[in-house]
């Protein structure tokens, strides 16, 4: 089973819950929050390997290029500009390869454009791996790095995925790649609002899911509203002093994961 831990609003405890889920399941885990990856800080782990993630863009041979402009014409992202010289803005390239195919003079060859890296950690408690995607600061291609990690782990039958914050296209990409989702929320008006939007995306992606209401004792009123609104099983997790060390929280995550497996069956 491939399982996502997700939570629309930032700060509701998604990563803490993902850390508990990792320790309970012992599965390879992927941190897809690539602009601000931090699951490795929630687990006792050591780094074992690092690899660069690159898109394949064009490199020009000025001796062959006649400045005909064909490559710029097919470049939908505006990364190639041909005027009195041939210019590439590597930050805009999406690695589609259309320019490479389009050049009638064979003046373009593939080159790597780095967007970030993947760090591979070994988690001491479980012996399992954590793959952490890290986008270069300032790069705009987070969705490409998420895609890279999803493709890279496609063949793993058991996988835990920590999704990015929000409810946008990257989150949809992750949801499309999993069998079930554990949705983390909190009993506040803002978290409920975000939850509604996230559930919309989850329904479109048709993913079985359950909802864990973290720090449910913050507000009985808003906890009830969450429970009333969602149409799937919910679990209440309490506020605790040491969330990562708490057996109480761990037990709730275990129950929610069991419930999720039932939903997905």
């Amino acid at each position, binding site marked *: 089973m491939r399982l996502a831990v997700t939570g*629309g*609003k*930032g*700060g*509701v405890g998604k*990563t803490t819950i993902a850390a508990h889920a990792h320790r309970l399941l012992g599965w390879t885990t992927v941190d897809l*929050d690539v*602009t*601000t990856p*931090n699951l490795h*800080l*929630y687990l006792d782990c050591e780094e074992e390997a690092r690899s660069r993630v690159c898109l394949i863009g064009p490199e020009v041979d000025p001796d062959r290029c006649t400045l005909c402009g064909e490559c710029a014409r*097919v470049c*939908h*992202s505006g990364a190639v500009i041909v005027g009195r010289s041939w210019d590439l803005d590597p930050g805009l390239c*999406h*690695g*589609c*390869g*259309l320019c490479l195919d389009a050049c009638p003079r064979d003046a373009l060859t593939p080159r790597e454009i780095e967007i970030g890296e993947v760090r591979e950690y070994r988690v001491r408690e479980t012996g399992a791996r954590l793959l952490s995607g890290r*986008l270069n*600061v*300032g790069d*705009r291609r*987070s*969705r*490409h790095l998420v*895609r890279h990690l999803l493709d890279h782990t496609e063949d793993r039958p058991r996988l835990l995925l920590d999704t*990015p*914050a*929000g*409810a*946008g*296209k990257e*989150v*949809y*990409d992750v949801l*499309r790649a999993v069998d079930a989702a554990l949705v983390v929320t909190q009993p*506040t*008006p*803002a978290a*409920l*609002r*975000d939850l509604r*939007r*996230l559930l*919309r*995306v989850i329904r*479109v*992606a048709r993913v079985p899911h359950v909802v864990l209401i973290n720090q449910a004792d*913050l*507000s009985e*009123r*808003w906890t009830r509203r969450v429970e009333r609104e969602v149409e799937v099983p919910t679990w209440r997790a309490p506020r605790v002093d040491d969330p990562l060390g708490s057996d109480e929280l761990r037990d709730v995550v275990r129950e929610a994961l069991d419930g999720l497996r039932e939903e997905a069956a």
Partner: protein
Amino acid sequence: MRIAVLGGKGGVGKTVLSIALASELGAVLVDADVTEPDTPAYLNLERERDVTEVRARYAVRTDGCAGCERCLEVCPWRAVDDPIACDGCGACAIACPEDAIELRETELGRIAESREPELGLRVVHPETEPWAPELADIVHRMIPEDEDCVIDCPAGLGCPVIAALSAADAAVLVTSPDPAALHDYRRAEALTREFGLPAVRVLNRAGSDEREGFDVVIPEDERVLRAALDRDPGGLVHALREPARRVAELLPDGG
């Protein structure tokens, strides 16, 4: 003056501080969290007008399709025939040898301008489907042209945050003291530096002994949480008035 409020990690208090700061400065509040806009959950907004529609294109295969799958090869998201995943870039249409891709237009919502009567605050906020593409473009369209504004950035440091920083004159960096938030905060600080923006650094929900390297320290305050739960914008701004005032003073030209 345009001020971007960012922090990297979610839940550190960006939105509540943005609301308090915009009230303090009498500036327009821009909610740049396009996929999960939260400001309406803290405020009692009265809608004034639609600023603009948000439209998008998506690619579908039509009758001329010969099934070669070239379009799927060039699409990084394999999003042909999937309007939710497609970002309308058009690469597949350029690649199709049969000219069989059609890019269809659809409306995904609007950018709205509302008023918070109690605070006298004007808010520009997105009301789109969460899967709207080109978030950076939407953020740019929300930023008013010649008015002061406070831009409340989403969690993370993706396109919308970069768009906000590229339009801003100054940044307010917010974090809480926990290690994960500080880790993300340092990445946010590095990004802000790339744009060469002056920044006010805020430590929110601080304990007693942490303050090194911060310009403004806001202690843990139950009143903020209560105001959020009660949807009491006046109470929220009241609880954060002092720190918001200090942030405003530290901004270039006092905001």
